């Protein structure tokens, strides 16, 4: 039994070690939380030593010591070379500091230092954790010996993508700018559109390892307090290693996980986000993501495109109705085809029935299998088209459309009618302006196809009923997802099925979101009767 005695301490130790790991993990990840919550020391030497040990002597951590010998200096400047604008640091931080230290100015050194640094944003901090967060986000830190505070100068730089045209939410008429990965650029794009001091920004840092900046934006006086508090609360509860895109935040804070429908909008268009803010929505901007989130949202918002508001109301309304129909086609057409050809042939007019029957003659698969095969083939082609290098992307569409489709029909594997159904369904799916919603529609389509193949129209209706109940019970940050349709809000129907002319949209379309409902004066109100001055008699 001696071996057991030797093994026992190992088991005990490993159990304890595991517990300690999990405890530290639940608090601050790999760093000891005490390191980060500790205050800065008065001794510059001690501060530098702690920072160096925290960074493990990273190669891109630059430490410049001024006003004395190395190790005994008066001022230190720290930054990560990879993410700062070096030219900016040299010109606006280093040069004044050198002058300051050489000049040996008297009086209050800290206030002199503030005046000396010609940078716009200078943050004062006394915690090691704050210092770390700023340095990791491209700030340059200035530490002064004998002072337990540090200064962070905004010097964020490094290589970034410039503002380009949106890639997934294009319009023919309207602004052509899109968000980038830089939170500052994105904030600039929004601030340039909404020039009011009521546009409020609140900042969060989320992610134990990534320490990602997440900003929430809203317009005070328009936004409702309840969803705003909900957004703040949910963001502050996120405790995760990394936030690499707004998609992470979306999944953490949305109301319901088990749904195919998106409960938050995302947009890469600053104009769309600005419009959302003006309707009382809250924007969530995540550093590193070109997609800004909007909450709360409703089902109908996913069928509204930015362009609806830039072009004439009549064509915009027509296109919107087309989008709703396309959504229905996208989820229902293959399942209806399966149900009708398998169970309810009597529904079809006789000539059409004969035509379909002759096409299906010799096809070895039932309609359900035939449809599933074609739909899955299309999904494979679509996925391949996204992943393939752009130069060969067009080849994929040729292979898919011509070779596979035509060959499959000629080989007698699928009917021509099925090719038409699948193609039209696919095209209809692309009409939906939101990719999140169109992805949801793709999933629902497969479920409905299976139901149609087993129970015909009864199966489709069962599926639709579950879907409908699910939809009306969804909420986005407390706002019913199907409003203004269910529950019905008559006053908000001006921007649902159609978009009425701007002068008639006196109130904001989604009253559930905001306090201030009125958004325009009466100067352009459409007169109901010919204008006449008071007392003027008709001829």
């Amino acid at each position, binding site marked *: 039994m001696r071996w057991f005695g030797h093994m026992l301490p190992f088991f005990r130790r490993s159990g304890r070690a595991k517990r300690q790991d999990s405890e530290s993990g639940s608090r601050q990840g790999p760093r000891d939380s005490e390191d980060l919550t500790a205050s800065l020391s008065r001794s510059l030497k001690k501060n530098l030593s702690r920072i160096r040990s925290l960074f493990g002597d990273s190669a891109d951590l630059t430490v410049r010591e001024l006003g004395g010998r190395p190790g005994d200096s008066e001022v230190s400047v720290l930054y990560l070379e990879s993410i700062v604008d070096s030219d900016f640091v040299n010109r606006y931080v280093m040069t004044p500091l050198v002058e300051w230290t050489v000049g040996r100015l008297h009086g209050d050194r800290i206030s002199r230092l503030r005046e000396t640094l010609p940078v716009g944003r200078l943050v004062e901090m006394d915690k090691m954790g704050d210092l770390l967060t700023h340095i990791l986000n491209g700030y340059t830190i200035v530490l002064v010996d004998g002072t337990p505070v540090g200064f962070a100068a905004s010097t964020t730089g490094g290589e970034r993508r410039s503002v380009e045209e949106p890639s997934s939410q294009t319009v023919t008429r309207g602004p052509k700018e899109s968000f980038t990965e830089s939170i500052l650029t994105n904030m600039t794009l929004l601030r340039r559109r909404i020039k009011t001091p009521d546009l409020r920004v609140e900042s969060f840092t989320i992610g134990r390892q990534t320490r990602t900046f997440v900003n929430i934006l809203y317009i005070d006086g328009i936004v409702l307090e309840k969803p705003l508090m909900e957004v703040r609360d949910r963001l502050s509860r996120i405790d995760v290693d990394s936030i690499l895109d707004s998609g992470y935040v979306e999944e953490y804070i949305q109301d319901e996980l088990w749904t195919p429908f998106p409960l938050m909008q995302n947009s890469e268009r600053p104009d769309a986000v600005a419009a959302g803010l003006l309707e009382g929505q809250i924007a969530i901007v995540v550093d590193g993501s070109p997609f800004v989130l909007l909450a709360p949202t409703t089902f109908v918002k996913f069928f509204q495109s930015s362009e609806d508001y830039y072009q004439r109301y009549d064509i915009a309304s027509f296109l919107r109705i087309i989008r709703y129909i396309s959504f229905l086609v996208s989820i229902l057409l293959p399942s209806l085809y399966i149900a009708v050809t398998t*169970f*309810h042939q*009597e*529904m079809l*007019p006789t000539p059409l029935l004969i035509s379909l029957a002759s096409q299906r003659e010799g096809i070895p698969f039932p309609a359900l299998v035939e449809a599933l095969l074609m739909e899955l083939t299309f999904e494979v082609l679509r996925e391949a088209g996204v992943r393939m290098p752009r130069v060969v992307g067009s080849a994929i569409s040729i292979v898919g459309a011509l070779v596979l489709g035509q060959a499959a029909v000629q080989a007698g594997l699928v009917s021509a009618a099925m090719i038409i159904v699948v193609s039209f369904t696919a095209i209809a799916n692309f009409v939906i302006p939101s990719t999140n919603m169109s992805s949801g529609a793709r999933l629902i389509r497969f479920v409905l196809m299976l139901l149609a193949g087993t*129970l*015909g*129209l*009864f*199966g*489709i*209706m*069962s599926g*639709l*009923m*579950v879907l*409908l*109940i*699910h939809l*009306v*019970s969804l909420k986005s940050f407390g706002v*019913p997802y*199907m409003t203004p*349709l*269910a*529950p*019905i809000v008559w006053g908000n129907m001006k921007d649902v099925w159609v978009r009425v002319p701007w002068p008639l949209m006196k109130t904001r379309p989604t009253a559930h979101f905001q306090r201030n409902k009125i958004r325009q004066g009466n100067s352009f109100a459409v007169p109901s009767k010919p204008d006449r001055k008071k007392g003027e008699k008709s001829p």
Partner: protein
Amino acid sequence: MTQNVTKLQCAALVMTTILPTAVLILPKTVMNSVAQDAWISLLVSTLGGVIVAFALGRFAARSKGGVPFQKGLSESTGRVLAALAGLALAAYYFSIASIALHEFITFISAEMLEYTPKIVLKGATVLVLMYIAARGIEPIARISVLLMLTSIPLLALSVLLTLSKMTWRQIEPVGEHSWTSIALGGVTPLGWFSEVAIVLLIAPYMTRPKEAAKGAVWGVLLTGAELIVMVLQSLFVFGPNLVRSMEYSMVDLVGLIEVGNFVERVEVFFITFWMSTVFLKLGIFLFGAIHLLETTLKMPFNRSPLLLGVGLLLWADTSYNWPHDMNQDLTTGITTAMLLVCNLLFPLALAVLGRLMGASKQAEGGADA
């Protein structure tokens, strides 16, 4: 549950509870009694239904916001009586759900899916109903409003499209039957209208429970109006004799609609729309049973296990408890008596009992003082 049901939603819920099965069965049943005077019978029973709705609505309006019906009852009639009433009503809603489900699947099987085993169809329906009941009354109310608003233009359209096939003389001679026969012909529809008793369960979750009576009355009025229009439409197109020989006259009526050579056989679309209303109706009944059970038994756990158990029981009951060739007249006979007793007499008895016990408590309190 929160108090979010509006008056409009209450009316729509009442309509959804009554209309879906009534629309199929009532035309034939009433015409069997009073032939071309069926519409007068329906008019009379609608007026009766309004009185019933008002009485039950007033009783429901006494409920406290957010307090379930059964719990409210225990405050007025005592725990034991309230528990018995809760269990009895739960049994009623379960039973009526089972009967309605059986009728629904019999219809689906006859009209759409002849070769699919009924037990499979019933199983699939029970799954949908369980999901509906799990989500509570609010989603059902929201969809009910949508369906109500859709049904009105659809009915108007069907009347317009069958105008050319109508013969106005089909309802002559008007008032041929005695008033006693006409009143008796209205008994079956009155049974259906008494399903307005669902308002007792809805009222506590209304934004203003006091408006329960208005919601109930409006629900019955709208239902009655739609039924009268449908019966008149059937009468004008087919005449009383033909309707009596038809199993489901409304389906045959919609089947007549043709626009040119390309829009025909629209009865399948009618059935599809109608199916959605039946799903909701059955969902309301299952919700009623589950809600009453969980409030009466004071379940210490969430709704899911109870839902699963009751759902399985419903599937078994509806699959094996009814003969496969159950006569529709038999069903109608049973249900009318049951509907009137459970929806009308029982709640009214509870209301009277509650009043009496409340009065005696007050008297005791006064004596003590």
